[in-house]
């Protein structure tokens, strides 16, 4: 679904759902990285039980990142994936379950989208390579410098599709990763790890949903499990709401638009490939010692708290004076359903509903009306009441005409404003007035300190007079112009050429607008839409009905998919465009049920269905031939160029790719002929696999599993509920299992084998239910709804205390603040030249510089890396605690020491402490100054007096005469 748009809309409308993640960073001591102990309490002041990873959201950015140079080979990609998962694990710190799900073969309904993505990706990849080549020649001819061309092959991101060798390798690497972490990482000791790789059919997030759904339908499920799901897709929010679990949080990368990207030609930041000049690389640091440091800030993570979204929704959806008792849970389901109208992966969105235009608010308004009128909800446990949906559609349909007109108006208004803005920007490049002389602005951190202001009054007078003269000169100029042009031109400088400019702007300035033949804002739009998009006449009712019927089926399918799992692997929406809302007439009987017993494609079959011929190298030779041979009986699936309908959008990637649909019967028939050509390895890749569960030796389930292997029992065995927090499922022996004390070979040359393995793995199957079983969309009995976080509407009336908003997960969180001594310390040490503290001395005092407490801020461009060796100065890039911006490390520490007695649960989590002989305190820390921020996070557990002494090479700070408070007085 329009991912950025939906998420942007949601986070603007419901801002409190977002909580920034606190991440503890690993330390480096004497060049050795000390991993974070994830068995310690979560620094986010919340404990999660289960962490689910929708792996495709991790694989894509790790294999072809947009904001940094791509990994050189497959091994580096795997390591990047591991590191990414470690980061997530460190932030979330699940205590019971880690579930990794890679997209397997998807339902047919998804295939159209997958096809269009892969056909585009393939073309984009080729284009980029061509452009790179062309630009490279050009730059080199002009005498520019470029790093030598890498030998590596272009990474075709299309290989991230089930059935390819890459995915097979990835599954192997993940098994190794799990075994390694279970054996070596204390945070993993007691968790149960599920791996659902690409050989298990189903999209990653839906496999996760299936797991949750099937667990919560059995009596041993703990209704207060705290789930955390990782992934960036907006539909995860819908899925999370659809579970009706009270504690559900989503973690994703913070979305930062317009992030700088390195030029793909020379690898430098600051320009795009088409502007590449091949300039020599800017030296990083005096001797280019920071050349390898990543110049961009690391992507940060945010939590999306669905419990708060539910609070918001409850406010918005609650309907008073209903003829029946209001059920919030049902209206959440209806809300989720209505969001599908606006966009989802399986259906094109209705032309009149655009999320940016407040479509969801409009729908909610209509919805409340309909519920009142018909006395019921739209959906129940994933089944749709079409009669009521029709009412909603009709209500939207009535407004359709106006929506299109308004859209056109807004669009034109926007264009006009942009044009004016552009003109303004052109006219006034730079600020209207800049003070000069001693008041001239100076760059922060530039060479030379600003001098004290001298004789300010006189300087101000001079500037004033200068300004007046300027004004007079302008007036004279415009007068002259007026006389020259007679009375044609109005007053004001620059106005006389506005006529000429304007014409030009209209003629050629703007990029050519894509032609829009539909013109939804003009009378007859429906006719034109059907004619241009479907190539049928509006009088062709039968055809229109077909489209509507398919769309109605689609809505039912999607909702069922979210609430009950895949109803049909075969169903798909067979058109490229949606009908209008007003076309939804008499839809009540358009849908009865889906075909039962449908089967997913096999992985290689699906590859044939979604790949363009250009990605055929991932397929066996004889299969590949079917994609290009003119005598192939499926050649029509593989055009090498296809039309893109911009559909009112500006860029090709936003448009609709008009790709032909795959005829399943013909695909299967054609493949039957080439099935015998598969090698054993390929046949294996083409088969469906099973989920696997892993635990470490210390887990109660471990012995049970080992027993199963000993007994060599070849039928499924149920997990005893008490061994694994009430998780049920069937275990089956793995053919090539990971067993304790059986070394695990590393599939990646740069990582070592695990000789001391203590993990065990076994096949796992979710609890099975009858085919017609309906998973109830309700809150389970025994579930405790979390406390309210939003400010009650009647707070002012009932309370006279000011409202204190809750930040983060902990309602009783201690706010960090400085006491008097802290402020004094701060004021004392802050660099006076940069607007000193309240106890600042005088501008001339600068003997502090270079002293033991040097507080020169670091060079502004490198925020990261440990380049401040031995320099106790600090620079923080955490924007949440801004006071550290110009405060050196020593100040932070002294502030901490000054106030830690008062603020009971401050704790140094990263900084290691050692008490010296004369009561002095040694603080060691890595040269990365993010750590300092984390040092000041407060934590619910008091500081422990037993510090592990850590020898620190880089920084050793001695703060004398500090009494270490006793444990009890914290």
């Amino acid at each position, binding site marked *: 679904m329009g991912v950025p748009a939906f998420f942007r809309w949601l986070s603007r409308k419901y801002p409190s759902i977002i909580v920034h993640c606190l991440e503890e960073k690993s330390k480096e001591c004497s060049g050795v990285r000390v991993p974070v102990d994830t068995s310690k309490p979560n620094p986010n002041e919340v404990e999660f039980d289960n962490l689910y990873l929708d792996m495709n959201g991790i694989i894509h950015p790790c294999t072809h990142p947009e904001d940094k140079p791509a990994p050189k080979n497959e091994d580096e990609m795997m390591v990047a994936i591991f590191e990414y998962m470690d980061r997530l694990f460190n932030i979330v710190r699940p205590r019971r379950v880690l579930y990794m799900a890679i997209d397997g073969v998807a339902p047919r309904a998804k295939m159209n989208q997958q096809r269009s993505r892969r056909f*585009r990706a393939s*073309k984009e990849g080729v*284009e980029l390579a061509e452009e790179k080549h062309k630009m490279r020649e050009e730059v080199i001819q002009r005498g520019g410098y470029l790093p030598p061309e890498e030998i590596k092959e272009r990474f075709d991101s299309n290989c991230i599709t089930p059935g390819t060798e890459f995915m097979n390798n990835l599954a192997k690497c993940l098994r190794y990763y799990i075994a390694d972490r279970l054996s070596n990482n204390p945070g993993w000791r007691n968790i149960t790890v599920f791996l659902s790789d690409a050989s298990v059919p189903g999209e990653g997030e839906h496999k996760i949903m299936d797991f949750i759904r099937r667990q919560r339908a059995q009596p041993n499920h703990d209704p207060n499990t705290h789930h955390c799901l990782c992934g960036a897709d907006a539909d995860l929010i819908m899925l999370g709401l659809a579970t009706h679990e009270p504690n559900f949080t989503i973690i994703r990368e913070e979305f930062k638009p317009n992030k700088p990207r390195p030029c793909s030609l020379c690898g430098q930041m600051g320009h795009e490939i088409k502007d590449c000049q091949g300039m020599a690389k800017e030296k990083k640091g005096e001797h280019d010692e920071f050349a390898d440091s990543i110049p961009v800030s690391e992507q940060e993570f945010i939590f999306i708290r669905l419990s708060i979204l539910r609070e918001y929704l409850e406010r918005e959806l609650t309907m008073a004076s209903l003829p029946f008792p209001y059920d919030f849970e049902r209206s959440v389901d209806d809300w989720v359903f209505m969001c599908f109208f606006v966009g989802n992966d399986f259906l094109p969105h209705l032309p009149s509903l655009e999320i940016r235009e407040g479509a969801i608010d409009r729908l909610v308004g209509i919805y409340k009306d309909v519920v009142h009128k018909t006395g019921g909800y739209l959906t129940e446990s994933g089944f749709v009441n079409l009669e009521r949906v029709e009412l909603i559609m009709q209500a939207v349909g009535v407004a359709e005409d106006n929506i299109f007109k308004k859209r056109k108006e807004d669009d034109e208004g926007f264009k006009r404003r942009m044009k004016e803005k552009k003109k303004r920007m052109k006219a006034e490049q730079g600020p209207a007035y800049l003070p000069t002389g001693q008041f001239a602005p100076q760059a922060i951190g530039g060479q030379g300190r600003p001098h004290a202001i001298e004789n300010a009054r006189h300087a101000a007078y001079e500037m004033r007079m200068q300004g007046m003269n300027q004004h007079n000169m302008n007036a004279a100029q415009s007068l002259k112009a007026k006389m020259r042009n007679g009375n044609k031109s109005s007053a004001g400088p620059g106005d006389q050429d506005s006529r000429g400019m304007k014409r030009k702007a209209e*003629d*050629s300035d703007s990029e*050519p607008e894509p032609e829009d033949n539909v013109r939804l804002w003009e009378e007859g739009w429906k006719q034109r839409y059907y004619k*241009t998009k*479907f*190539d*049928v006449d509006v009088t*062709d009712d039968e*055809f229109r009905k*077909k489209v509507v019927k*398919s769309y109605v089926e689609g809505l039912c399918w999607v909702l069922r998919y979210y609430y009950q799992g895949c109803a049909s692997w075969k169903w798909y929406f*067979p*058109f490229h465009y949606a009908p209008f809302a007003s076309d939804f007439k008499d839809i009540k009987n358009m849908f009865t049920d889906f075909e039962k017993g449908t089967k997913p494609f096999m992985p290689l079959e699906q590859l044939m269905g979604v790949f363009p*011929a250009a990605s055929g190298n991932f397929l066996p030779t004889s299969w590949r031939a079917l994609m*290009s041979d*003119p*005598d*192939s*009986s*499926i*050649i*029509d699936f*593989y*055009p*090498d*160029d*296809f*039309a*893109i*309908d*911009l559909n009112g959008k500006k860029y*090709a990637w936003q*448009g609709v*790719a*008009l*790709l*032909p649909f795959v*005829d399943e019967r*013909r695909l299967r*028939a*054609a493949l039957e002929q080439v099935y015998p050509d598969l090698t054993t390895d390929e046949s294996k890749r083409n088969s469906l696999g099973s989920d696997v569960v892993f635990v470490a030796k210390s887990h109660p389930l471990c012995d049970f599993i080992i027993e199963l292997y000993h007994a060599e029992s070849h039928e499924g065995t149920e997990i005893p509920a008490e061994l694994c927090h009430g998780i049920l499922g069937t275990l089956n022996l793995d053919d090539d299992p990971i067993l304790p004390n059986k070394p695990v070979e590393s599939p990646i040359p740069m990582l070592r084998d695990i000789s001391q393995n203590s993990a065990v793995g076994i096949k796992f199957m979710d609890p099975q239910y009858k085919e017609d079983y309906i998973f109830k969309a309700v809150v389970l009995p025994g579930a405790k709804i979390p406390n309210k976080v939003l400010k009650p509407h009647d707070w002012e009336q009932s309370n006279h205390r000011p409202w204190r908003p809750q930040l983060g997960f902990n309602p009783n969180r201690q706010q960090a603040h400085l006491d008097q001594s802290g402020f004094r310390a701060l004021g004392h040490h802050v660099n006076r030249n940069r607007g000193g503290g309240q106890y600042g001395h005088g501008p001339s005092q600068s003997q502090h510089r270079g002293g033991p407490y040097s507080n020169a801020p670091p060079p502004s461009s490198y925020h990261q890396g440990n380049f401040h060796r031995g320099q106790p100065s600090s620079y923080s890039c955490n924007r949440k605690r801004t006071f550290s911006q110009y405060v050196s490390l020593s100040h932070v520490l002294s502030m901490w020491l000054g106030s830690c007695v008062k603020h009971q649960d401050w704790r140094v989590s990263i900084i290691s402490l050692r008490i010296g002989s004369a009561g002095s305190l040694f603080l060691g820390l890595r040269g990365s100054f993010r750590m300092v921020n984390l040092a000041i996070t407060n934590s619910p557990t008091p500081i422990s007096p037993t510090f592990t002494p850590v020898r620190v090479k880089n920084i050793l700070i001695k703060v004398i005469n500090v009494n270490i408070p006793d444990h009890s007085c914290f």
Partner: protein
Amino acid sequence: MMARKGTGGDTVSEYLDQNPHLARWVESLRDPCESSKQWAARREFILRNMEAFPAGQAGLDRLLSLSMAWANHVFLGCRYPQPVMDKIREMADGVEVHEAPVRKTRDELMGRVKRPGAPGGEDGCVKRPSASSGEGHSRGVPPPAKPGPSPHAPAQHQPFFNRLYKAVAWKLVSEGGFGPNLDHFEILRSCVETSKASLSCVIVPLKDIPDLPAGRAQKEGQVCELRCQGVYLGTGYGRDEDAARAMASKEALKTFQGRKVTVKICRRRFRGRDVEDVVLVDEQPRGSAFPPALGYPFPVRDSALLAPPTSL
């Protein structure tokens, strides 16, 4: 449903009325979501070609696949590898489609027009009577594709170039008249686009051209040939691609300086042989022959001559 179709369709439906068995069979091949218009065209395609394919499912599937490829090309705007295109072009001979939609392929959208003469949707693969000239009514079926341009091409294209002639004239007036200091390419491009068509350029390095008059000293630089709707407009030479394009545009605009422009079939050199090409000429008798063609949008008898398309 049947009534709205053209003459070809009527014969088909008559034929099917007389053979109900065949009608039922062919109806079973219809995709349930296919519009009647597309199905009518595809049905004709199937019926015309079914004898050439062996009976049995495998043969039928191949025919179906090619029929879908053809329908995808005509109705969705897909392009297939050249051998497939050649094949479906041949098979579609005689099938007429009225008002086939005009689509922009991704390559065209990205400004990567590879195929000389492709714009306007006219690629010889299907007779699209209305799409080719942008006029609403359909015309008679041109004779089957033979090497070289169809003899009707000048008549087909003349109305368009009459309009383009006017557009250019007005544009030049607003720019202060034809002269050396204009952005010739920009003028030509905008005129062509206001006439709802697009320009296609073929650019070839000078040294790659075999038909150069002997005694040319220069070996560096680029040569550009401009076409619109498959009609040759002009050729230009320049140091780089932009300069070549500008020069070609200037040459093309010169043609528009006369009292009218005419579309004609003339002989030109192309890869070492004489071919017939559709060109745009003014009234003046031409002093010399046309420069050799760089790209050639019409089928040539020797398929090896359908050379690799050159990109912009």
